[in-house]
């Protein structure tokens, strides 16, 4: 699949919206305006944008603890997201879910689970529903390389393959399962190799190359829409921040960090679009400043929202 200028501009603006949102969250967390456990995807925006920008609202995305980017790229509006992170009643989930449990059914962001791997079978079930509905919608699940060693992964992949369900497993392999390197978790380096015996299509791409993610995922998506599946896309990526905000990151190798900085997905793709003459420098600046302004407005609106009141605490336990 060939990337065209309009789609390219959308990828760039999506990555900037994610980056601007999360950089602002860093500040808000530091000043305790954002409460609780926060996991950021700065440096990994290429995967979220490359995958989700091709999906429709009726396609289901299941995410995990590091899910802000997936939600934004899937179309979840920034203001209720920011209000949710700030624990406000106008938050996406009325302040009951927080950063790790964003849900926006209208935009097909079906949910994020905080337990590594717990989201994998959910996406398989959603894909089963899609199959029974008979339409062409698909399910996509994001997970890290850490989840691959869990039973959730193996059971879900087996079932999805057995029933040929329209689900795309998107692994963000950032080389760290929480605080431990992949080499200490498994003898299999490439996640795409783990599923080889099932025989379904799989691919490993450079996750910091948004065009490569877009192209590989687009190929799987068009097949999944024709009722085939499952598929696995492994994106070699990086998180520039710690596992969570506040992580001392003693496990990091500084030279590798510098190397990843050069591979930043936004900087790389900006250079690419300039080379292709899709956008000039002034437009690039507008894309970035527009994203930052949108985030700032979201912060102001979120701050104006009150905290939830106690009656909400017990009223939503049962449907």
């Amino acid at each position, binding site marked *: 699949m060939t990337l065209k200028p309009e789609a390219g501009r959308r990828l760039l603006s999506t990555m900037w919206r994610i980056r601007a949102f999360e950089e602002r969250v860093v500040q808000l967390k530091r000043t305790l305006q954002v409460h609780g456990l926060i996991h950021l995807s700065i440096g990994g925006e290429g995967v979220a944008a490359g995958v989700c920008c091709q999906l429709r609202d009726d396609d289901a995305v299941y995410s995990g603890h590091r899910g802000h980017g997936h939600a934004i790229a899937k179309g979840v509006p920034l203001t209720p997201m920011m209000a949710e992170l700030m624990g406000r009643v106008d938050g996406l989930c009325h302040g009951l879910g927080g950063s790790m449990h964003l849900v926006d059914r209208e935009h097909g962001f079906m949910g994020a689970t905080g337990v590594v791997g717990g989201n994998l079978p*959910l996406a398989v079930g959603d894909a089963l529903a899609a199959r029974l509905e008979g339409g062409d919608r698909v399910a996509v699940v994001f997970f890290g390389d850490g989840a691959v060693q869990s039973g959730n992964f193996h059971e879900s992949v087996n079932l999805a393959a057995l029933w040929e369900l329209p689900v795309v497993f998107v692994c963000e392999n950032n080389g760290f399962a929480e605080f431990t390197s992949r080499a200490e978790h498994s003898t299999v380096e490439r996640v795409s190799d783990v599923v080889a015996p099932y025989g379904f299509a799989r691919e490993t791409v450079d996750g910091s190359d948004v065009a490569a993610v877009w192209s590989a995922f687009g190929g799987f998506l068009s097949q999944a829409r024709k009722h085939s599946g499952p598929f696995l896309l492994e994106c070699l990526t990086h998180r520039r921040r710690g596992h969570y905000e506040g992580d001392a990151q003693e496990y990091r190798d500084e030279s590798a960090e510098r190397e990843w900085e050069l591979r930043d997905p936004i900087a790389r793709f900006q250079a690419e679009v300039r080379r292709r003459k899709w956008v000039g420098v002034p437009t690039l600046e507008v894309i970035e400043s527009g994203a930052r302004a949108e985030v700032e407005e979201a912060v102001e609106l979120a701050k104006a929202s009150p905290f939830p009141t106690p009656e909400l605490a017990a009223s939503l*336990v049962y*449907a």
Partner: protein
Amino acid sequence: MSHEIPYIAAIGEAIQLEMARDEDVLYFGQNIATTENDEFLKAFGSDRVRVTPISETAEIGMAIGAALAGLRPVVELYMAEFMLVAMNQVVNEAPRFRYMSGGRVKVPLVLKAGYGFTAGWAGQHTGSIYGMFTGVPGLKVVLPSTAADAKGLMATAIRDDNPVCYFHHYLLTLEHGEVPDGEYLVPFGQAAIRREGGDVTIVATGYMVDKALAAAESLAAEGISAEVIDPRTLVPLDIETILTSVEKTGRLVLVDQATRYGSPAAAIAADVAEYGFSSLKAPIKQVTALDATIAYSEPMEAFVLPDEAKISAAVHQTLGSAPVAA
């Protein structure tokens, strides 16, 4: 009109009727629909009736995803202990999703699991583990004790918009009972008074209901009038019916096949102590399984579990009277 069928057939009847009524209801699990003659498969086809691998985590997790997408899966788990393999999905995904989403989604799902197979199945297939789920906000917990309730509670469970743990007792499987014909729903949170009485209230669940009724029958011969209450659902719990009964009798014996510490009986005892203390004329008695793994050897199994004699003895203790020698 009604018909007489075994408890297990009553459960199947409810699932069949609900599947015929609502095409969003799915039924899947291990070892179901393995032959073309399977009645569910014949009636509803292989899209809606699916055999699964031995992958409890994927089965239950997939059911949650299908429920989030608008379907109503019933997962056949056979043994309640198999839910333990998928504890994250049962406890930390299914019941939390609605709440964490601020009410934006619902998870209508039934986990059908047998429990208490105390017939020589030893330590890992005999537990009465429903108490592990009663303390999880968002889950409902159902324990039918009769064929009619087995049908009516299953139908209600399938129509409920929340995850429901439906625990059927293995030793009741072939017990026959009168079951209403056609659509039959038993509401959640409404206890059944199985026998009326004025001297003591006995609360029992599942297989223990028959034991309590047998004890009440022999106590009646001694002139002791016992009221037997079957809560039918532990979540939601009809504590009102229990408190009203205790107000009348002043005495409470709780019979629970689960181990004692942290059991549902203990939770009921706590509620009665808190809200019905002034009605009590004697300390509450709990007749539960011993805090031990169920033993294999038959006499040991009997020693570990509650029975009619233990229930009668507890009633005598609350009345301060000595049991009559048999």
